[in-house]
């Protein structure tokens, strides 16, 4: 296996930017290589933390779905309760995407009944907005200024 995958990517990025880039002839290719180096650092962050961030999202979305269980369909509830098949990124993404789609549906339904809806509707709506704010902050790409 590749030890310290994220660090390995960062080392290669540093090598690209510090040693290979200065020897590149054209201004265009230098800019391109510099950006590739920055993107490699962003990917390194994702390699290290991406799965964990997605799992935190899934956990928080599940908490919302528990409160909003009465508003979910049987099919949605099945997906919400589904086990994660593996910690492969593709499997985590699949579950994350499925839950996000349910979240979008739930938010849409709540908006349609929010004017006359019970207080619980507002609580769920607010919980979704709080989640979206935390989700956006959690996935901030910090490697690129």
């Amino acid at each position: 296996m590749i030890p310290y995958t994220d660090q390995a990517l960062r080392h290669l990025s540093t090598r690209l930017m510090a040693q290979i880039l200065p020897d590149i002839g054209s201004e265009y290719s230098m800019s391109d290589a510099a950006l590739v180096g920055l993107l490699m650092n962003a990917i390194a962050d994702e390699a290290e933390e991406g799965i964990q961030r997605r799992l935190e999202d899934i956990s928080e979305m599940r908490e919302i779905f528990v409160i909003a269980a009465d508003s979910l369909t049987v099919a949605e509830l099945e997906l919400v309760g589904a086990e994660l098949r593996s910690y492969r990124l593709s499997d985590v993404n699949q579950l994350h995407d499925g839950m996000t789609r349910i979240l979008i549906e739930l938010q849409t339904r709540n908006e349609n009944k929010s004017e006359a809806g019970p207080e619980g509707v507002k609580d769920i709506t607010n919980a979704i907005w709080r989640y979206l704010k935390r989700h956006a902050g959690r996935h901030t790409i910090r490697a690129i200024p």
Partner: protein
Amino acid sequence: MITLEEVKGAVARFLSEKWNVPVSVTAISKIFGGASRETFRLTLDVDGQSKRVIIRRDPPSSLIDTERALEYGAYEKIFPTDIPVPEPLFLEDDPSYLGQPFSVMACIDDCQTDVSTLSIEARRILGEHKYQILGRLAANNPIDLGFDSITPVPELHHCALEQLNYWRGVILDDEIHPQPIAQAAMRWLGSNLPPPAQKLAIVHGDYRTGNFLFNTQNEITGVLDWEMCHLGDPLEDLAWSLDPLWTWGEPGLAGRLLPVDEAIEIWCESSGLVCDRIALKWWRIFVALKAIAIWISSSEYFHHGEGKDSILAMAGWVMTDRQNKILLDYLMPHDLVDADLEPEPEPEREREPETEIESVKGAHQ
């Protein structure tokens, strides 16, 4: 991938045929950063005279699905007006020269696009010029200039909905992962359409700092990148120019140049139009959504298209991230802002003053 030597040879042959005089290329460079077209700057020897041109070549993949004919047509129709643009020279659809269609424009020399090194005063002067030009563009009659021959003419009351539907389609077609914030924005925009446009205007579509050239006197000498040009509500361009993404790290300054309220005032004076703040609010949320659509498309092109330009990845990953935060600022209910947030290792971008954004807090309550 075409080499610079191939471009040199093909352009020399093409222009020799067009101008019927000997043409050779004495210098060539590829300009970094253009995500929609490959752009080359060439110095020519035209029968003993030095001349510089810009070549815009269609790439295998593009950030924006646009017709080169629309962009070139916009340059042709704007060039005779008081809006500064580079002179369009040729549009060539035959791929036998460069492997893809391309356009040729005159080069505007001794100019730059980067405002980051300018003094505050220089930025203000440039900003005044920028919004005077945008106002003049809005004041034009697009039919008189012949824009109805290159782009559809919408009804005034359809301008907003047509744009929303178009960019909604782009998001739904190109999203790799579901986009809950963009979806919330689409629902809000669909439920809160603005009043009809006060006039039909030429909308540049990407009027922002970085898309114009300016000289050492801080005068704008060329407005560039007309590929998203269309006819519509003049507030759309104003809103796009004010998007916080273009002021990242320097909140409160429109396009990093001058305060937002001053920019709007200059635009109103120059255009003779009024800025309905409620309508502008809608357009500001819309342009943030449109931007997300563009960034999502760039990510889709990067992953599934032929081109693997780093700029596509940069736009698709980083800009989507930032634009989502901008939309959240606009849409999040007021009483939830700053609540229940995990501490971030870096300071968040400052919120713009209420007078500038007037976000739609509470819209979803």
